[in-house]
């Protein structure tokens, strides 16, 4: 297709395979090719702020709202959510398996000084993790380099590293579900409502970025938010398990 738009996105949507499922459907319908640049949250927002994309699709609500407020984006829409989970080795040295209270689980991990691999990259996931530590009253900064290990990399890389060192990892469910390097790792903690992970979608502001293909970009967003798009999101499965839960009806924020 010679009609195309560029979507700045985070890696979870790409690595989980969600976009591979959604985009061909949209392209078949609209004739618009969707080019995805999947990078870290901060980089995705920065790229969008530099006008290097038509649509932004990330999961870091406060940062997204700031982006819109500064005029980088037109409007933010809730698109879907999934949840974060804590994975860990079968041996489970801190004994957190089966817990549903993330805060408590983190406290146990800290008490046991069991290795924990943090993304440490200011991503949405990392911000969520930090707020959980804060709530748990653990000063991870002091433990950095000891049992608390900031990998400073993407979700998939952090899982690889965590697996390599036998550390607990906080990850979004989709990335973990699609991850192949599991080495006996399991989801140990899930189900806490604090582990909620909201994705949003934003059209880059054509008033600030004249190069933005506002019509094409908005059409893509409209499709994502439409019944068809939302159904497609809901239909995406890994091992028969739904990964993302469309929630567009809550509409713009």
């Amino acid at each position, binding site marked *: 297709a010679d009609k195309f738009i*560029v979507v700045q996105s985070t890696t979870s949507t790409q690595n989980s395979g969600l976009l591979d499922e959604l985009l061909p459907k949209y392209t078949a319908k609209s004739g618009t090719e969707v*080019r*995805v640049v999947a990078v870290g949250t901060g980089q995705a927002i920065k790229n969008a702020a*530099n006008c290097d994309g038509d649509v932004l699709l990330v999961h870091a609500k406060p940062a997204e709202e700031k982006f819109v407020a500064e005029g980088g984006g037109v409007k933010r829409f809730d698109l879907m959510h999934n949840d974060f989970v804590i994975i860990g080795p079968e041996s489970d040295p801190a004994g957190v398996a089966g817990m549903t209270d993330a805060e408590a689980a983190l406290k146990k991990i800290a008490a046991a000084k069991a290795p924990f691999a943090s993304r440490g990259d200011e991503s949405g996931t990392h911000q969520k993790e930090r707020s959980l530590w804060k709530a748990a009253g653990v000063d991870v900064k002091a433990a950095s380099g000891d049992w608390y290990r900031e990998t400073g990399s993407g*979700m998939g890389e952090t899982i*690889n590293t965590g697996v390599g060192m036998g550390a607990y990892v906080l990850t979004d469910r989709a990335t973990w579900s*699609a991850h*192949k390097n599991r080495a006996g790792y399991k989801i140990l903690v899930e189900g806490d409502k604090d582990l909620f992970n909201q994705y949003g979608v934003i059209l880059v502001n054509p008033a600030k970025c004249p190069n933005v293909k506002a019509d094409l970009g908005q059409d893509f967003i409209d499709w994502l938010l439409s019944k068809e798009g939302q159904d497609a999101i809901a239909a995406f499965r890994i091992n028969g398990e739904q990964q993302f839960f469309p929630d567009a009806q809550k509409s713009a924020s």
Partner: protein
Amino acid sequence: MQDFGSAVWQALGLVASFDRDLLEIVLLSLRVSLTAVLAAGLVGLPLGAVLAVLRFPGSGLLVVLLNAMMGLPPVVVGLVLYLLLSHAGVLGPLNLLYTPTAMIVAQAVLVTPIIAALARQTVADIRGEYREQLQVLGVSRRTEVATLLWDARYSLLTAMVAGFGRAIAEVGAVIIVGGNINHVTRVMTTTIALETSKGNLALALGLGMILLSLTILVNAAVQGLRATAARTAYA
């Protein structure tokens, strides 16, 4: 450890299945890196030779800088180019960001100092022998550079090959300016990085083997060319 065996199988399987997507990725890798190396050679070889030939105030410093630039971090090169090519950048209107052209430029920037620095050493070595003879022939600087490059051509191939190795294996710069966009700017190394982040280590390794085989093929072709090239009159 079964990953190694698994990697070999995946690699063989991929090649055997003659995957269309894989072919596209392989061809783009070759196109980008070969073009980048040719461009880098076009600039780097004369540049290195000029630095071997000319002595001027500051030329020693320039050589140090050039040698140091062999250590240009790809991510930094990618970033600088990104800022230039971004729509917010001065070259934004060219619309080159997230295109193979941007990737070629990035690799060429990375590889030019390597080729130039290695060429400088090679040319300086042969020049020790030629200098006075060329001087008495009244050869201009320009002709001297051309002559030294030509007469050192077989040794210079190693510099070019080193540059190609750097380019084809590079990921940090191309992923920033190319964006690793499926069907548009996805090359072997960015695919390997992607599969690694997905935890597909065996697939990543398998792709790595295919990439290395490609590199070996390119090198074998170069070596073959060198050997069969009419070496008449060269001794």
